[in-house]
C-alpha cells in the first residue's frame, strides 16, 4: 500500500505527467464553462451543442465524409502547429514571441505573391516565406538585444505594419470583383504543395498535402534540437538564467536573435503550409492579424511547452474550432461557435498556472516530508 502510494507520487512528480494532467484539466474546465454559457443562452440545446463542438467531423454521417472533414482539420492543424512551435522555440529562451502572427502574415504575403505574381514552384515559395518570417523575427530579436525594446511591444507593432503591408502588396494579385486573392490552384497550380497521394487517404481531400507530415517532422526536429544539441542546451540555459548563461560565456544576445529568427522562420513556414494548399484565400481588406499566431500561444501552453505535446494540442484546438461551426444556428447566434472555442482556448492558457500550482503542492509536501526549509525559503516565504 505504501509502496503504491510512493509510486503514484513519483509519477506525479514527472514533468510530463504534470503537463498532461493540467492540460486535460484545462480542457475539461473550458468545455464546462462553454456548456454553462450555452445553458444561459438556451438551455434546451446546450448539451447537443457542446457535443457537436467536440464531435467535429463525427458530426457527419458516413465514413467518407468524416474522413474528408478529418482531413480539413489536419490541413488547419499544420499551420497552427508551426505557429505553436514558433512560440515555443522563443519561449525556451525566455522570450514571448507575440509577433508570431506578424511573421505568419509575412510568410503568407510572400508565399502568395511569389505564387500568383511570379508563378514560382511550391518549393521556392516555401523558402521565400521562411526567409520573410525569419526576417521579421530577426528584426524583433535585434531590437530586443541591442536596443532593449521589449519583444512583446515591438512584436505587436510589427504585426500591424506587416498586416497592412501585406494587404497592400496582395491587392496586386486579388480577384477583380472581390477582396480575395486569386485562387492559387487555378492561376499557379505548380505552387500548390504536392499531395503525394495523401489526399486520397482522406476521401480525395485535395487540401491534404505534405504540409501535414512535414509539420509533424518539424515538431520532432524542434524537440531534438532543444533537448539533444549544444544549441538547445545554450538556448534553454539562456532562457532559464540569462545571467548564468552570460557568466559561462554563452553569447546570450546572439542566442536571443537566433531563436527569434528560427521562431519567425517556423511561423513563415506555417503560413506557406496553409496558403499553398489553396484551402483559403487572403482577404485583402482584412483589418485583423490572422488568429493563427495567437492560437499558437494557446496551443503551446496546452501542449505543456513540449514540441510533441504541441502536435496534439494544435490538433485539438483546430478540432474544436472547426467543430464550433456545427452548433445549431437556429438556437444560437452564429458567433456562438467562436465564443465556445475562444473560451476553451482561453482556459488553455491556464495550463502553466495549474502546473505551477500542482508543483507547489507537491513541493510543499516534499518540504514537510524532508524538512528542507531552504527550498521553502526560495519562494520568498
Amino acid at each position: 500500500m505504501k509502496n503504491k502510494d510512493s509510486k503514484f507520487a513519483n509519477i506525479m512528480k514527472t514533468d510530463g505527467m504534470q503537463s498532461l494532467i493540467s492540460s486535460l484539466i484545462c480542457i475539461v474546465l473550458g468545455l464546462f464553462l462553454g456548456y454553462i454559457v450555452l445553458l444561459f443562452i438556451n438551455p434546451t440545446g446546450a448539451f447537443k451543442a457542446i457535443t457537436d463542438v467536440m464531435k467535429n467531423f463525427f458530426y457527419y454521417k458516413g465514413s467518407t465524409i468524416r474522413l474528408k472533414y478529418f482531413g480539413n482539420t489536419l490541413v488547419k492543424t499544420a499551420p497552427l502547429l508551426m505557429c505553436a512551435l514558433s512560440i515555443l522555440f522563443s519561449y525556451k529562451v525566455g522570450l514571448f514571441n507575440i509577433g508570431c502572427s506578424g511573421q505568419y502574415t509575412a510568410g503568407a504575403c510572400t508565399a502568395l505573391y511569389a505564387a500568383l505574381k511570379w508563378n514560382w514552384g511550391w518549393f521556392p515559395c516555401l523558402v521565400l516565406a521562411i526567409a520573410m518570417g525569419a526576417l521579421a523575427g530577426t528584426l524583433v530579436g535585434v531590437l530586443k538585444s541591442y536596443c532593449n525594446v521589449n519583444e512583446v511591444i515591438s512584436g505587436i507593432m510589427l504585426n500591424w505594419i506587416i498586416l497592412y503591408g501585406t494587404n497592400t502588396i496582395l491587392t496586386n494579385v486579388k480577384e477583380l470583383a472581390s477582396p480575395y486573392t486569386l485562387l492559387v490552384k487555378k492561376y499557379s497550380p505548380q505552387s500548390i504543395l504536392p499531395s503525394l497521394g495523401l489526399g486520397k487517404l482522406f476521401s480525395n481531400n485535395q487540401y491534404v498535402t505534405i504540409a501535414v507530415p512535414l509539420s509533424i517532422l518539424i515538431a520532432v526536429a524542434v524537440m531534438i534540437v532543444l533537448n539533444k544539441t549544444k544549441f538547445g542546451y545554450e538556448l534553454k540555459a539562456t532562457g532559464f538564467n540569462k545571467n548564468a548563461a552570460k557568466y559561462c560565456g554563452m553569447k546570450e544576445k546572439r542566442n536571443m536573435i537566433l531563436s527569434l529568427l528560427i521562431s519567425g522562420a517556423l511561423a513563415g513556414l506555417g503560413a506557406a503550409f496553409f496558403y499553398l494548399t489553396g484551402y483559403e484565400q487572403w482577404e485583402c481588406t482584412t483589418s485583423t492579424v490572422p488568429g493563427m499566431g495567437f492560437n499558437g500561444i494557446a496551443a503551446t501552453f496546452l501542449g505543456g511547452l513540449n514540441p510533441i505535446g504541441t502536435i496534439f494540442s494544435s490538433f485539438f484546438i483546430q478540432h474544436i474550432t472547426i467543430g464550433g461551426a456545427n452548433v445549431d444556428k437556429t438556437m444560437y447566434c452564429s458567433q456562438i461557435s467562436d465564443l465556445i472555442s475562444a473560451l476553451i482556448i482561453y482556459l488553455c492558457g491556464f495550463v502553466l498556472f495549474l502546473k505551477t500550482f500542482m508543483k507547489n503542492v507537491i513541493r510543499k509536501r516534499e518540504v514537510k516530508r524532508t524538512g528542507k526549509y531552504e527550498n521553502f525559503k526560495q519562494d520568498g516565504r
Partner: protein
Amino acid sequence: MAEQYAIEMLNITKRFPGIIANDNITLQLRRGEIHALLGENGAGKSTLMSVLFGLYQPEEGEIKKDGKVVQIRDPNDANDLGIGMVHQHFKLVECFTVLDNIIMGVEPTKAGFLQKKEARQKVLALSEKYGLKVDPDALVEDITVGMQQRTEILKMLYRENEILIFDEPTAVLTPQEITELMQIMRNLKAEGKSILFISHKLAEIMAVADRCSVLRKGKYIGTVDTDKTSIEELSAMMVGRNVNFHVEKKPAEPGDVILEVDGMTVASKVHKNNAVKNVSLKVHAGEIVCIAGIDGNGQSEFVYGLSGLEPLVSGRILFKGEDVTKASIRQKSVMGFSHIPEDRHKHGLVLDYSLEDNLVLQTYFQPEYTNKFGFLRRDNIRKKADELIEKFDVRSGQGAVTSARSMSGGNQQKAIVARELDKDPELLIAVQPTRGLDVGAIEFIHKQIVAQRDAGKAVLLVSLELDEVLDVSDRILVMYEGEIVGQFDPKKTTQEELGLYMAGAKRMEVQA
C-alpha cells in the same frame, strides 16, 4: 512557578519522514536576557524558528508565553504574541524611505490618509531611547547596511514586539558596526526586551549573550551560562568534536605574475560614481591574494570587470603577460580563468537544469561533450558528473539528474567549486566561496583552495568574513569605496586593524 520565562519552547519534536529535525528540544528565553542559539547548518535552528513562527506545527511539545500555553498557527499569531525577527537578508523596500519601511503594514491612518507625523515622532522617540541612529527620510538604497539593520530593529520595536530574534545579524557588518550592534542589544535588554540571538560566531556569543543553547543534528545539547564557559567548550558542543579553526597550510611560494590588473575602473549600476576606481594589483602563481572589505565597496564590480560580466571604463587586464582586456568571457575561461561567483543562484547555476548539466556549464562546448554535429554527448556528461559528484562529495536526492534547485545551498556551492576546479585553471577567482556553509563544508572548500595554491595556481579570493581572510590568504588587500586602501600580511595584522581600513578610517598607499 519558580521562574517566569518570556517564551518557552518545551520538548519540541518535529519529525519529517526520515529525519527528526527537532528532537525533544527545549528552549527557555528569560525575560530581559540575551539568549544565543548556536548550531551548525542543518542543526535544526531554522526548523525551531519556523515552529516558533507557526510555519510548522510540532508533533510533540508546547510553546508557552509568560507561562501560559499558546497556539501559534501562522506568522500572524507570532506577531500578535509580540515575536519579531530581523532576518539575515533584510526585508526592506529599497526605494522607500526608512520611515516608510518602519511603518509599512501598520501605518497609522485617519480616514484613509496616512498620519506620518505621528509615526515619525514615535520612530524618533524609539531611536532616541535605544540609541538606534537612523535618518528617517533617507531612502533605504542609499544608507549603509548597518543603518538598514537598525531600520529592521526599529520595525520590530515600532510593532512593540517583546521578543526579538536576530538571525545571524553580524554577517554583513564591519567589526566596528558589530560592536555598535552589541551595544544596541544590551540597551534593548536593559529595557526589558528578550533577545534570541542566532549565530555560529562564538566570540560574539561570548561577548553579548547571557546564556547559550546549543543544537547539534536536531538534538538539544545543552544550555550554558556564557560566563561559565569558553569558546572551546562551545565549539566542541556545537560540532561534537574539537575543531581546528586554522587552515593548515605551508608558507606560500609565489612564482610568476599570473594576473596583472592595471588601473581598472568599472562603472556602478546603482549610483553615478564609479564602483571601482583605478585599481591595480598583481596575483602570482602559488599565492592566495584576498580582497577584504565590507559588502558593497566595489569588490563585486571588480570581479565582474575582471571576468568580463561588466565592461570596463578604463584599465587593462594582463593574463600571463598577455593583454586580455578585450577578450570575451568564453576566451578567458578557455585560457584558464575559473570563477566561483558571489551569487550562486544568479550566476553560478542554472537552477532549472539538472546537476550534471550544471557541472558541464563551462565545458559543454568541448569536443568531449559535444560531437562535431552539435549533439551533446550525454554519456560523457554523465560520466564526468558522476566523477565530480564522487570526488567532491556533492550530495543530492537523485544523483546526476537531480534538479539543481532542489539541492541544499552547501551542495550547490560544492557543485560550483567542483566545476570550477575541475577545469584545472591557472587563475581561480573565488568570491565568498563559503557563504552560508557549515563548518564542515567550509573546511573542505578552504582545503581545496589551498590545494590549488600548492599546485602553483594563482588564487584571488574575495571575502567578507575576516576569519576566512586571515586564515586562508597569503596577502590581504583591503578595498574601500572602490579603491585598494591597504595591503597586509595576514600573519602580522589583526581583525581590528583590518576593520579600521575597511571602514575607511585609515588608508595607505599600495603599489601593485
